């Protein structure tokens, strides 16, 4: 029978510092790809709402493809495909970390684009018309009138996406990024303690995502639009 408490008493002082060190990499991947997802997602949300049919079609195509692909496939495509399509270029800067954040970022952009769009569309059209009749340009009305109000609607789903993203960083281990999951694998198989190590890693992931999910619950209660 497996004696988890004894295994932890014996090994935790070696495992925990190393795993916590690699959790920082996990958080770094999550933070950078979150940033990419917000910026690119906002761009695609605006393209998606464009009056030009070609631009709109391009945005819809990107969103459907990126949302329809499994994240693992997105990571493999982003990381392995460009160097092979354009072998003449210099790809030495394109590390596994870069591939991971670009892959997760683009996938997230497609998810967030839909979140942003529904937030923007949920606002009454009159808000925009009023802003424009006051002499604002469409860009100004978007920046000062629509987006600040939409923030309230989109914040809970964006935070939910952040939780999902944090968990999805574990898939970066499959393209070889040295983050929490990859380090856990090497410890687990070097020390022949898969159960103890993977349970510990689950607890670490939980400790990172639980505060976020508490925050979502708080926001859902606090920011609920009262009518």
């Amino acid at each position, binding site marked *: 029978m497996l004696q988890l408490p004894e295994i932890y008493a014996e090994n935790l002082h070696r495992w925990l510092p190393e795993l916590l060190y690699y959790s920082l990499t996990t958080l770094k991947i999550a933070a950078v790809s979150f940033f990419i997802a917000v910026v690119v997602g906002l761009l695609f949300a605006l393209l998606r709402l464009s009056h030009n049919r070609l631009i709109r079609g391009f945005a819809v195509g990107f969103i459907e493809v990126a949302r329809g692909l*499994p994240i693992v*496939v997105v990571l493999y495509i982003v990381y392995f495909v460009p160097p092979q399509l354009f072998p003449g270029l210099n790809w030495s800067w394109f590390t596994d970390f870069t591939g991971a954040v670009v892959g997760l970022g683009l996938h997230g952009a497609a998810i967030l684009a839909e979140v942003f769009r529904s937030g923007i569309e949920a606002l009454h059209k009159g808000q925009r018309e009023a802003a424009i009749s006051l002499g604002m340009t469409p860009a100004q009305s978007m920046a000062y009138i629509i987006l600040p109000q939409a923030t309230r609607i989109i914040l809970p789903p964006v935070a939910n996406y952040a939780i999902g993203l944090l968990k999805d960083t574990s898939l970066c281990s499959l393209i070889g990024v040295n983050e929490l999951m990859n380090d856990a694998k090497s410890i687990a198989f070097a020390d022949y303690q898969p159960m103890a190590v*993977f349970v510990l890693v689950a607890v670490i992931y939980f400790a990172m995502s639980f505060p976020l999910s508490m925050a979502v619950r708080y926001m859902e209660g606090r920011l609920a639009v009262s009518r």
Partner: protein
Amino acid sequence: MNFFQVMEQKGWYFFTTLMGGWPETLAVAVCSFVFAMVIGLVIALMRLSRWRIPRWFAISYIEFFRGTPALVQLFVIYFGFPDIGFQPSPFQAAIVGLGLNGAAYMAEIYRAGIESIHRGQMEAALSLGMTPARAMQHIILPQAMRTMLPPITNFAIVLLKDTSIVFAVGVVEIMALARNLVTETLQSAAVYLIAGALYLCVTIPMARLAARLERQRQAWQ
């Protein structure tokens, strides 16, 4: 050899090889879907229970499984369970892992569906002499199904996409075959793009269906 020459010479071979992964991918998806539907209902009923202990158990279950990556759960089951004397096959580990993980999501879908039905329905059923279990089965769940159908379709899409991680515990599905092909031919660009296209052929129509069901539900309300 550039990408287009590779596609011309090897494209058909890659396509047919990867298509051979569909039965396994679908088997994992369908089995874990059924598993998640059943366990999810049990968890949802516990979550809505009047008694504290099942309710707390359900809340911890949902929080824990939604708070940790599915990949870690798969590894605990596949590599960890032998430590406590049970060696699952890759397929068993995959459906138990994705099934238990999915049950946490399904439980929340069931709960939202059941809570969307007016309390008077339950009271009316009970006053007609039905037991709570019969009322749930014949009155509440059939009506809740209407609300739950779009999120369940979305869940099925997520589950199908999540099967792409089970190669990590040794299931030979589409992604595992893709990785083997890349090892064999080194043509990662062509192989992974074809693999991606295979997933899109199923996930995009399913997403369209989910959106249509959602529109119908809103029109009906």
